């Protein structure tokens, strides 16, 4: 079900932990849904000197956090901000379809940590930043039947599922 790269990062996640005097902290996800990540960053000369995280979640969520930390450490803030969910999934050799939206929260949490840093350092205040870019879309059915998230139609009532 998972790629070798995902299992490698799950078995030996890199950069786990917190940074006590972090320059920015970002959180994404919700424990009720099963995945939550907190990213901590240390910034020096416009680059991510250190990146750490804590993750509550499944195999994919843990591997995503580890991969994101590995990909952006040492990168400039602009480079880090440009990291997309798709790029994270590709770097992991792919993620199962149903995990793309709910567990692939690393880039989002990191983005929030950078936004937090920028807000603290006289950039645009965090409150004014649009929350829209952080919204996660989840497939769900409006009748109470459980459907796989990639399903286009409800397997029970045949109704089209809203994405």
């Amino acid at each position: 079900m998972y790629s070798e790269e995902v299992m490698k990062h799950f078995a030996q996640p890199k950069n786990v932990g917190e940074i006590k005097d972090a320059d920015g902290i970002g959180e994404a996800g919700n424990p009720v849904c099963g995945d939550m990540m907190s990213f901590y960053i240390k910034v020096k000369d416009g680059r991510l000197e250190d990146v750490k995280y804590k993750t509550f979640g499944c195999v994919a969520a843990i591997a995503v956090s580890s991969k994101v930390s590995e990909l952006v450490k040492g990168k400039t803030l602009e480079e880090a901000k440009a990291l997309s969910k798709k790029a994270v999934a590709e770097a992991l050799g792919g993620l199962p379809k149903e995990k793309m939206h709910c567990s692939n929260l690393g880039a989002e949490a990191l983005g929030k940590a950078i936004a937090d840093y920028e807000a603290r350092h006289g950039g645009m205040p965090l409150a004014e930043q649009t929350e829209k870019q952080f919204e996660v879309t989840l497939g769900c059915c409006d009748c109470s039947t459980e459907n796989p998230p990639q399903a286009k139609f409800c397997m029970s009532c045949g109704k089209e599922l809203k994405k």
Partner: protein
Amino acid sequence: MEKKVYLDNAAATPVRKEVIEEMMPFFDAEFGNPSTVYDMGSRIKAVVDVQRAKVAELIGARPEEIIFTSGGTEANNLAIKGIAFAHRKKGNHIIVAATEHHSVLNSARFFERLDYEVTFLKVDEYGLVDPQRIRELIRPETILVSIAYASNEIGTIQPISEIAEVCKNKGVFFHTDGVATVGNIPVDVKQLGVDLLSLSGIPLEAPKGTGALYFRKGLRLMPLLHGGIQESGRRGGTENVPGIVGLGKAAELTLQELPQKMRHVKVLRDKLVSGVIESIESVKLTGHPETRLPGHASFCVQAIEGEALVFMLSSEGIYVNTGSACASKALKTSPVLLAIGIPPELAQGSIVFTLDVTNTEEDIDYVLEKLPFVVGRLRSMSPLWGKKETAQASS
């Protein structure tokens, strides 16, 4: 050899050697179709009827009250749809517990979209239904009540004979999903007084894709599969003869060995439960502490997620199950855990052990050695556990 401890016997079991041996001739040497009239076929029909008698004996039924199915899901579908369609003139109301298996829940929801009404019955914190509540909910148009005998997820055993009594007095059919139960505790349909009972070959160490529905003699039941007159016209299609032979043999062995199996798994289960509670903090036993299947232990572990826990345990050679949302293809938290009032975030840390007679005390020792380590490792990564520790330290 690498250590392997398999504790997910509700999901799948290895088919017993005796069962495989019994099945083998029916793949090639005795391949006839039971519906044919010549000796090659009539011989097989006699064999199928012997198996029917064996399965009937296991649950205290008569042979003609057994319909072979492709497993528990089909048996549950046949019970609910078969009764609801056949008795539409009598009424259109069905009662099921909110904690039923998907094959029952989704069959009931299917009827909600026809002109039927379904009541999803609430359960208490242990997952128990209240027979008196069922009495209150039954209306003149109620035709069927379906409550599982025991839950595969939390192990709780329901007061089935009391519910059957209520239904009988009210003149309503009562079906129980016995998939988690038959093969784990003694079941006698006549003593229980149920009208229909589903069973699966999996807990009996028979092949996957085998199962049966018990239906009380004389009960009118609409078939799901229209076809020939196999299974007395209640299920068309040429019989899965090797599977039926496997199920029959497994039923025969289960009847002989069940008391010994129950004693064996209960000792191990009790050791596992007390060991887990002692060695891991912030862990909750789910389901009823006593009125539960003898080989069943289920917990919710705080601040970690079940799929990650299951994968990390499997890398240590330990195979278990979880009701976590991330582990379900539909990404929904187990409705059973939510129905018994477990908060959604705690339900993510669900872990389920189902034991079999092949498990040993060393298996349990191994789990009790590895599990606290794996839980600790995942908690050290979890932002939820960190918060809890900080909160405790500052208070």
